[in-house]
């Protein structure tokens, strides 16, 4: 076992544990906070994969915006600060069965693939992943069209979210 393998195992266990708490925690604010620790674990995983930009964007976008939005939404949609009643529906055992079988299916599918035990090659010398990513995102031969479509999607979602959540009775 090399040190980075030990680090990966710790991070993976931490992430999966907090992910499990997200879906089982009775208190929804706690679930949202566990989501933050899961997202942080995923950010560390990105860092382990040398995807620095993704790791930092994960923290900025997911933890800084999405998770905070979740906490706000949880607080805005409750008559009472406590959670009452069961948090899972009556078919939860079926969901558990389905997710376990999904994992088992994926595991067996992956076991049969020969690329599984591949190890990462070292970066070519002078390779700057962030600069390369930036060039690819705006180069016409690269991914400029998906990038622009994503920005249009974000604007549309912004306008749509404001329109849907706007309360005509309290607004001007």
């Amino acid at each position, binding site marked *: 076992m*090399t040190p*980075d*393998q030990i680090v*990966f195992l710790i991070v*993976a266990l931490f992430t*999966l544990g907090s*992910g499990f708490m*997200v*879906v089982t925690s009775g208190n*929804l604010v706690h679930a949202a906070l566990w*989501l933050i620790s*899961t*997202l942080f674990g*995923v950010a560390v*995983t*990105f860092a*382990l*994969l*040398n*995807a620095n930009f*993704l790791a930092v964007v994960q923290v900025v*976008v997911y933890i800084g*915006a*999405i998770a905070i939005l*979740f906490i706000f*939404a949880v607080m*805005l*949609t409750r*008559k009472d600060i406590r959670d009452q009643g*069961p*948090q899972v*529906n009556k*078919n*939860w055992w079926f*969901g*558990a069965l389905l*997710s*376990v079988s*999904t994992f088992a299916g994926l*595991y067996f599918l*992956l076991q049969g693939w020969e690329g*599984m035990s*591949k*190890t*990462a*090659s070292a*970066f*070519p010398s002078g390779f700057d992943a962030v600069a390369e*990513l930036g060039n690819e*995102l705006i180069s016409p031969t690269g*991914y400029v069209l*998906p*990038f622009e479509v*994503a920005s249009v999607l*974000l604007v549309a*979602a912004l306008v*749509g*979210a404001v329109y*849907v*959540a706007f309360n005509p009775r309290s607004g001007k």
Partner: protein
Amino acid sequence: MIPLSWFLIFAAALFSIGLFGVLSRRNAIAILLGIELMLNAVNINLAAFWRYGNVLNMAGQVFAIIVFAVAAAEVAVGLALVISVYRRRNTVIADDIDLMKW
């Protein structure tokens, strides 16, 4: 060095946990939390395939960034819908929002 399989199995486990959340939770916001877990699992896969494949081909990272944008849009619209439903029907339990159910 960490073999690729570890990342893939980790992502598969995270995806299954998210799937369980989506299928079993009653609260609509908790269902969205589960969807976030699934999207993150997908992103781990994309980043892992970028790192273990040809690093000069940035498609994996670019796709992960598009997933970030989609996730942000999905959460913004989804939570706006949940809040709007809460205003009208006074509930966020997915089973109770059944007006369109025959």
